[in-house]
């Protein structure tokens, strides 16, 4: 498994340009509302931006750090419920400060981050598939907790948010969040912090021995990823005007966020956005043409990608530089045996 060569900013002058291409792309996207699109088209773009943001954030912990998180939707849910509880006008819950969206939104990221710090202290000690399964269990547990904690969350009855629906405003929020998230991933990938994360992914014990504080790095990556995912969740709750455990902890969303990152290329900056865009487009394709088989189609695609396209779309174009889910799961125990 020696194909890993750490990239660095000086070795790859092209990397200096790629962020400018991203900036241009974002600016172009910012002009889109001026072409008078229908709000339906804006909403499609908003949903795609959210998926890109989620995939990109997931990639930070799942791809760059190598901790394949099967329960990342937990943080989305915490963000959604934070905004829901802070904004709802319902008289049935015990705590409803009735804040505006802009007052409530920052808290969605903060609560998700706090939860990640607490949870990470325990789960980040696990490796490989054990971490994945622990996070999946966390997700399922969280959904039940939300269901049972009726006085605060409205339980199965859910919470209504004031329907403010302004798609143009939502478009720019989603775009801004996406631009920020992906830009941040670019910066991380090119920073010492990012290189340390990659070192942890490839050989955690080796990294530790070279003086990298692995716990600090892992936890920071996990918390940052949770913070941004929480923000997406909070935003989602606001634009959907209604949350309950079933619509917030909606399994296909969890799957899509992972799938997008895997399809695009784990650990790369541009893989997850590309994967998310392609996946969203494919979903529409299946939705339109194979009405009854579209989930089946997506499932088969996931299997196909993991088995035959382990490096994702970016890996297809950059041979031998991109890791895969199977790699990540096999690597860790193998290394433990070696030491």
């Amino acid at each position, binding site marked *: 498994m020696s194909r890993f060569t750490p990239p660095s900013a000086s070795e790859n002058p092209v990397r200096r340009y790629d962020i400018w*291409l991203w900036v241009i792309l974002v600016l172009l996207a910012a002009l*889109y509302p001026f072409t008078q699109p229908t*709000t*339906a088209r804006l909403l499609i773009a908003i949903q795609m931006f959210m998926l890109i943001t989620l995939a990109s954030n997931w990639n930070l912990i799942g791809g760059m750090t190598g901790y394949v998180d099967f329960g990342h939707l937990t943080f989305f849910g915490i963000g959604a419920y934070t905004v829901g509880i802070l904004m709802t006008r319902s008289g049935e819950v015990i705590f409803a400060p009735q804040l505006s969206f802009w007052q409530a939104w920052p808290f969605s990221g903060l609560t998700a981050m706090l939860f990640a710090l607490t949870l990470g202290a325990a789960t980040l000690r696990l490796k490989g598939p054990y971490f994945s399964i622990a996070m999946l269990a966390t997700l399922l547990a969280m959904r039940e907790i939300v269901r049972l904690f009726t006085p605060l969350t409205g*339980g199965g*009855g859910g919470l209504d948010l004031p329907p403010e629906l302004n798609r143009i405003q939502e478009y720019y929020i989603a775009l801004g969040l996406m631009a920020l998230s992906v830009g941040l991933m670019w910066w991380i990938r090119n920073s010492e912090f990012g290189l340390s994360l990659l070192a942890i992914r490839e050989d955690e014990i080796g990294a530790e021995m070279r003086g990298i504080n692995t716990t600090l790095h892992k936890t920071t990556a996990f918390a940052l990823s949770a913070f941004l995912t929480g923000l997406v969740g909070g935003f989602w709750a606001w634009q959907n005007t209604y949350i309950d455990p079933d619509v917030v902890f909606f399994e296909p969303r969890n799957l899509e966020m992972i799938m997008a990152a895997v399809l695009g290329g784990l650990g790369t900056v541009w893989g997850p*956005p590309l994967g998310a865009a392609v996946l969203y487009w494919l979903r529409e394709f299946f*939705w339109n043409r194979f009405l009854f088989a579209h989930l089946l189609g997506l499932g088969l695609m996931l299997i196909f990608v993991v088995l035959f396209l382990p490096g994702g779309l970016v890996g297809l174009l*950059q041979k031998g530089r991109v890791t895969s889910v199977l790699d990540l799961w096999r690597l860790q125990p193998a290394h433990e045996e070696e030491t």
Partner: protein
Amino acid sequence: MRKFTFGLLIVLAVLLVACPSPATPTPEPQAETGGQAEEGMPKEEKVIRIGAAVSETGKYAREGQDTRQGYILWQEWVNNEYGGIKVGDERYKVELIIYDDESNPDTVTRLTEKLITEDKVQFLLGPYSSGLTKAASAISEKYKIIMVEGNGASDSLFERGFKYLFAVLTPASRYTESGLKALADAGAKSVVIAYKDSPFPKSVAQGAEKWAKEYGMEVLAVESYPADIKDATALMTKFKDLNPDVFVGAGHFVDGVLLARNAEEVDFAPKAFMLTVGPSNPEFVEELGKTSNYIIGPTQWERTMTWQGQYFGTPEEYAKRYEERWNEPPTYQAAESTATALALQIAIEMAGSLDSDAVRQALLEMDVMTFYGPIKFDETGKNVAKAMGAIQIQDGNIVVIAPEEAAVADLIYPMVPWNER
């Protein structure tokens, strides 16, 4: 190589942003008609566009199919037999646009936006389930497009102050009303309630508590159980110790079956056993056999009810028409979907206009009798005229026992204990 990757990424991303919906190339000939297209194009073509996002796949696929079939039955009737909706002196054909929302909360909002802003529908019919109706109705409300729905029964739908949302079905809180009244009249004195923790059953349970007290019964316990309950014997044992006259279980089909089985297992035999959703479905009887006997259930609608409507005749006549078209008997979800569309049609004809506010006014003033029962909306958009019916399974047959004007048989009370059947 990397440059190539980037080229590809950029090209793809630009393409995707510029035309985010390449797979749904809807023609947009009316882009310039402006606003909601209430005047202009449709008048020349004499077509009313009505849209709906209904689940064809996902977890509501089954109920979604009933909903869709109910809508289409109405559309075919109004276009082919009735001759189109009367607006003033003119007749309008109905163009019904139905999409699959995949039971997905994101898809239902996207499709609702699409129906309103791209397909330029003038009216909307509701999706299936309270959760999806909540997300969709917030959008129709914003565009002041009327949404009439028949498949979101949660009361909280009508506590958001929406002006353009109307529902023909009896809301969840009144599900147990006529059943509990019949039981109180028969001498029942105490009640225990169990409900599944999701919006609709919760509303049902809160209602049951209220009605029980109103009819002078004592509520001994109210318990919730998780949505994916696998075993309810502990719950049933607990209720057995309380020894109530009436058990009310608010949930859906699968957990209803489970509650009945577990009650029999621990021999919890109150004088009346009431379950929501399950008992009115013939499959419930097949599933449980003689255990299902004497179980009482609320029903929105049964084909044996004795309403007489102006358009589809009696429930039985409606059911025959439905069977002819779809080769299966109508569920109440199908009937309420047809009634939903029918209510919209009647309101448009009363208003003599396609204007949202005029039709809204007509809906508020409406007081009609249909094959589905009486329809009269209150200020919040709920149908207040129609009481829920109650059925009891007697010798494997589903018979209506309440309300009196629709009943075909008498309530059997108390029920025969499980072990003496």
